[in-house]
Structure formats: structure tokens, C-alpha cells
């Protein structure tokens, strides 16, 4: 195996394992959050608003919600961080690769935890006022769709691919790793905020929705940066890969040279 392939495995395998473990924890939580930081539906009948609010918080302690959100983050986002972890490791002294990676993760995580607070606040509001309705989820889905196909989304996606320079020594190296994480977190959140909010607001089926969003996020990540424009965006590369691999499997493109067509009229 080449050194490059070895290094890829060194990063990819633990990250994918971590993501898989997080999924398992999220899905195998019986009677708990059912997959994510979702406020328990309540039969709250004719209770006044204040009482309902207190009941919601009692059933869903903020600490548990935060932990659940963090698990969701690790499950869904860890794989897309692989290229950036590789970049950090390559650009850092061997002795501080783990430290720089941790700082990157901390910066990235901090942004997403802040986003999580907002998302959970919205979720709380929806549970208080429209808990069995699909309307809020539908509304966010519409918003997410418009955002998905917009040029602004492309701008954010493009920035997610950036691998910028990092100072090598001392506190500057710490700062750059942290800043890299924060910047990446900001562009990542700008790309995906609507997609992360949508599954939360569904009265039912949030696990399926979460899985679908995870597939979409990964598929988007496979696309190269491109000029911002309105276009269908997201599952293109994944679809093309599937088709191409199927073709190869069926022997349509073999290694034996196909003769060139007559190029000349």
C-alpha cells in the first residue's frame, strides 16, 4: 500500500467507525430520544402555555438534548471532515497532529453546538404550539429546498472544500487549527442548517428523514466546487457513480482498448 493510501486509511477508518458508533447509539436508544434530540410529544390537552413549557423541559433536560445533538453531529458530519483532518495532519508536526486535529474538531463542534441551541429552541416552539402538525416541517422542507438549489448554497458548499494554510509552531499553530475548525463549521452550518432542522420538526419519521439527510450531505460533498448558480443540486454525483459502477460491473467499459471511432469526416 502506498504511503498516501496508508495515511488515508489511518484517518478514514477511525472516523467512519466513530460515525457508525454514533448512529448505533442514536438508533438503539429505546424509549429515549428515538434517534435525536427531539422533544417528546406530549398529551398536553388544555394545560396553559407556561405549564406545558415546564413539562417539556422536565421531560427533555437540556443536557440530554445537547448530548443527543452532539451524537447526531458526529454521526452525520464526521465523514465529511475526513479530507480536512488529512490536511491538518499533513501540514502539522507529527508530535502535534492529534492536538491540532482536536482543536479543529473543537472549533467545528462549537459552531454546530451553537446552531444546535437555535435548532432546539425552534423545535421547542413547534412542540409548544403545533406538536402534531406536519406544517412546520413542510415549511422548513420548502425553505430547505429553495436554499438547496440556490447559488448561495453553492457558495457555501464551495467554501467547505477549502484547505487553507496553517502555522506550524506554538500558539499560532493552535490558533490556526481552531480557526480552521470554526471557519469550516460556519460554512458547513450555512450549507446545511435547513437540512438539519427539517428532521427535528417531523412529528413522526425523523429517523428516516435523518438518514436521508445524511445521504444527501455525503453526496453533496462528493461534488466538486463549481460556479454559483441555480441548479438541481445534491444527488447527482451519487447517482452517476452508481450508474458508472453498474456499467463497469456489466463489462460495458472493459480494460481492453476499444478502437477509436473514425475521427475524420
Amino acid at each position: 500500500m502506498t504511503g498516501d493510501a496508508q495515511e488515508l486509511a489511518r484517518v478514514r477508518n477511525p472516523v467512519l467507525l466513530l460515525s457508525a458508533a454514533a448512529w448505533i447509539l442514536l438508533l438503539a436508544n429505546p424509549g429515549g430520544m428515538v434517534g435525536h434530540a427531539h422533544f417528546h410529544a406530549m398529551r398536553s390537552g388544555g394545560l396553559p402555555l407556561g405549564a406545558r413549557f415546564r413539562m417539556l423541559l422536565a421531560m427533555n433536560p437540556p443536557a440530554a438534548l445537547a448530548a443527543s445533538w452532539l451524537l447526531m453531529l458526529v454521526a452525520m458530519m464526521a465523514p465529511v471532515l475526513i479530507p480536512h483532518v488529512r490536511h491538518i495532519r499533513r501540514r502539522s508536526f507529527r508530535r502535534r497532529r492529534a492536538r491540532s486535529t482536536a482543536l479543529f474538531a473543537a472549533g467545528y463542534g462549537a459552531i454546530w453546538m451553537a446552531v444546535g441551541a437555535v435548532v432546539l429552541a425552534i423545535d421547542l416552539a413547534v412542540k409548544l404550539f403545533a406538536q402534531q402538525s406536519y406544517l412546520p416541517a413542510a415549511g422548513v422542507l420548502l425553505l430547505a429546498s429553495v436554499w438547496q438549489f440556490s447559488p448561495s448554497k453553492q457558495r457555501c458548499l464551495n467554501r467547505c472544500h477549502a484547505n487553507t494554510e496553517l502555522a506550524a509552531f506554538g500558539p499560532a499553530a493552535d490558533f490556526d487549527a481552531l480557526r480552521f475548525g470554526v471557519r469550516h463549521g460556519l460554512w458547513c452550518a450555512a450549507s446545511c442548517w435547513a437540512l438539519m432542522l427539517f428532521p427535528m420538526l417531523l412529528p413522526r419519521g425523523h429517523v428516516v428523514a435523518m438518514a436521508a439527510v445524511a445521504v444527501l450531505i455525503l453526496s453533496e460533498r462528493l461534488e466538486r466546487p463549481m460556479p454559483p448558480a441555480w441548479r438541481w443540486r445534491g444527488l447527482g454525483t451519487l447517482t452517476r457513480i452508481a450508474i458508472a459502477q453498474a456499467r463497469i460491473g456489466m463489462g460495458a467499459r472493459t480494460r481492453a482498448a476499444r478502437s477509436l471511432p473514425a475521427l475524420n469526416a
Partner: protein
Amino acid sequence: MATYTRTNAWNNSGTFANADLLWYAKGVGAMQKRALDDLSSWWFFAAMHGEYVKDTAFPGWGHLPQPPSTPTTPQPSTSVWNKYWDQCQHQSWYFLPWHRGYLLALEAQIRAAVVSLGGPSSWALPYWDYFGPGTQYQIPPAFTATTLPDGSHNPLYVDARYGPQNNGNIYIPIPPVNQDCMSNDLFTGTNHNTPPPGFGGPKTGFSHSGNTSGNLENNPHNLVHVYVGGTAPGGATYGLMSDPGIAALDPIFYLHHCNIDRMWAAWNNSGKTNPTDTKWLNGPASQGQREFVMPIPGNNAWVYTPDQMDSLSKVDYTYDSLPAVAPAANQLSQRLTQLGASAAAARVNEGASVAQDQNEELVGANAGALPIKGTGAGTTVRLAADVLHKVSASLAGASETAPPDRVFLHLENVRGTHDALALGVYINLPAGANPNDHPELLAGTVGLFGLRRASRKDGEHSGDGLSFVLEVSKIFDALHLRNALDTDSLQVTIVPHQAVPDTAEVTVGRVSIYRLGQ
């Protein structure tokens, strides 16, 4: 037996007495009469390489010196644009096979035009062998004449072609342009005889613009582009050949790439092999990315893959002569000898051409971005003592079974707006010294072809810019032999071939030193 033979453009003194050049000029003229959205037009082909059709200032196609008179309308439909345009592969292992197909398609179009004008159906694209004897390092005179023999305008002449001294004298300076890459062992990857990322380029997906160029792409390819294009007097703009988004507008582009293609053929002919990885053979389309596609006469779409391009025997043309590739000294043996381990040098296994790229590790770096202005810039690269010690120890104890570390200088995240520069990179150049007096301190020379679009935030690598990797193992060997490696820093000096224009921006994100070893 191949149908077509590509010949030397300097035959018949490189003038229009060379029938291939005269017919080329007529074919270019015919293609230039077609519209921008015509799949067989000169402009469409140039845009397939790269374009700035919509840009509102230089190098926007509407803001280029004439001739030629470059159109920006009528633009093709979005689907045609997305299918064909901005396709060229750079900083990638697809660089060579993509360009081979591109040349084939252009050649077919020119040939069809030539035949319709009464010319020979055997016409083939000539090559410019700038390494050839005598005056061949100069651009063939047919490209600088303003008229054809019959007095009409010469399509091979372009206004925006300034040369290495920015004065219209077009030639290739040799050195620093060289054929060192021909002694590489590996198409992709690195070993003692092959600096990274390999002769042909790094393993990538679809790569219209990337980070690190392959060795042939770096030198001579990028340097020839930059030296031929040059910078305009005044410094505000640069020549067509300097930037991938306008380079294929200059007809010399295809003769340059013909020679690059010929060098690839010669490298294979000397026994070096192309990748067998299916990801390379089947091209990026097999990974769900864009396909390689060209319009051929009749406006049909020709989709091709590297496995169809990986040998001259598959493409029905040949070259009238391939450069002989002299067997090069094994670099590991040379280093061991220099380091005083002659017995070990003799025991080095010549046949080994396996990638050796384990344990790449940062040794040191400078602090802060380095702007390149005026006549050059310098920076101090601080070295980590513990890692540097590993390098010294490996040099001291080097043998054929415990090879010495290889050391590399990286220019990371080079960004800017002025492609037309060649940078000479020196280690520990004494203050005030003339760089030309110290070839032993030269790490390498790099051309900034592709700089502008690699720096765009909405570009293919999110504005990360270009990266360069220069092998400096022998410079470190010399430092070691002088007991000068017990140091905490190195001076790196970057010398542009011409003064950087005031309006231009070029910065190096970070200058660093890496080791590759046990």
C-alpha cells in the same frame, strides 16, 4: 502502421516553406471564421480548455488585445457549455491523456478544414521541439510573421505574446526549462528517481484546476506557457499563453502540447509504464464525475477515456522522431556516493521502481504569508530540532538498505492574479549574491500557469491556490557534508524571472520543509 505522422515545426526553417505550417495557418483561419457556439470553431475549442467569456475585465475574452478578434457571443446553451467547456485537466494524472484526446480532436478539425481548402488529407499537427538543436528553442518564424505568403493576415500571429523578457522576442530559456522529468520512473507517486507527485501527475478526480502539477507538467509544460506568454509592457496584463483560460486562443498552444505529448510517448518508449489503476484507465466519469468529450467533424460527440489514449499504437499517429531518453544515473546511488557511502552506492538495486513514499513528515515552516513583489522575496524557514535530527541521522548512517531521508521544499497555497511568472527558489542564498552564480542552491523553478483560477474562491479548489513540491535532498546532503545542518532555520529566497508588476498580487501561503524517510 500509423496513418498520420506529426513532424517538426522547424522543418524548412520554421517558415511557411513548411507546408504543414502553411496549412495549419489556413485551417486556423477557417476555424476562426466560425461562431463561438459552433462546436467546430477555434473559439469553442479554446473554451473547452478554459475560458473567461463572461469576465468583465482582463483576462475576460472581451478584453483581450487583437489579433485575434475573440468573440464573447453567441454563447452556447447551458447544457452544451456544461458538457464541453472548461474541461482541461491540470495538476492531475489525467493531464496527459486528456490533452492527447484534445489534440486529436483539434487535429481532426483542422485536417477537415485543410481538405476542404484543397490541402492534403495526410496533414498532421507539427510539434515545437524547443529542446532541439540550433535555433529550435525559438518560436518558429511562421508564428511571428504578420502575413501569409499571399499577403493576407496570418492567423498564427497574435498580439498578446510577449516572451521571457516581455519584449516580443519569443524563445524558451534552457535552463531553467529542462527535460529532467524524462528520467522519472513512475507515472504517479514518488521514489528516489521520481520527485513527487510523479511524471504524469497526482491521483485525482476530474481536475480542471488542482494543487500540485506532475513533473512533466511543471517543467517544461508550465514554464513554456509562462515564458511564451510573458507580461505586457506596463505589467497590467499578460500574454495569451500565460493563463489556461486564454492559452488555447494562441495557435502555438497546440504545437507546444504536441511536443509534451511527444515527450510522453518517448518516456513510454524508454520502458516506463502508464498506470494500470482502473480509476485512471476509466477516467473520472467512472467515478460519477464529468466525462472527457470532444466534438469531431460532423459535430458528433466523441467521448474518450485514458485507456484509449495510453499508447501511440492506439491513436493512429506517430512522430517523425522521438527524443532519445538517455539512461539517467540512479539518484540513490548518486546520493550515497556524495555522502561518502560508495560501497553502498554500488550495491543499490537499479531495477527497483516501486513507489517509496512512507512517513512524510513536516520538518519546519516559515511564519506568515509571503508576498512576492518586485524582484523577489525572502523568508526564514524555522526548523524543528527533533525532526531535523532525524534527517541528519539518516544522512550520516545512509546505506542501500537504510536510504537517506529525502527532503522537499513546499510552496503551499500560492495565490495571485498574475500567471505570467516563473519563480526560482533558492536555499541559503547569500545576501546580495547573484542567484545565477549559485545553481547549487537552486531548489527548482516553477511557473505560475493556472494561478488566477486556482485562487478564485468559487473555483475548483475553493481558492486554495497552487502548491509546488521541490526535491532538495542534494542541497541538504551538501549542508550535511559541511556540518551546516546543526541549525534552527534556513533562508529561502524566491526570485521571479522578471519583476512582478506593481498591480499584480502573488503570495505564498506557507513555505515549508518536509522529510520522507524511515
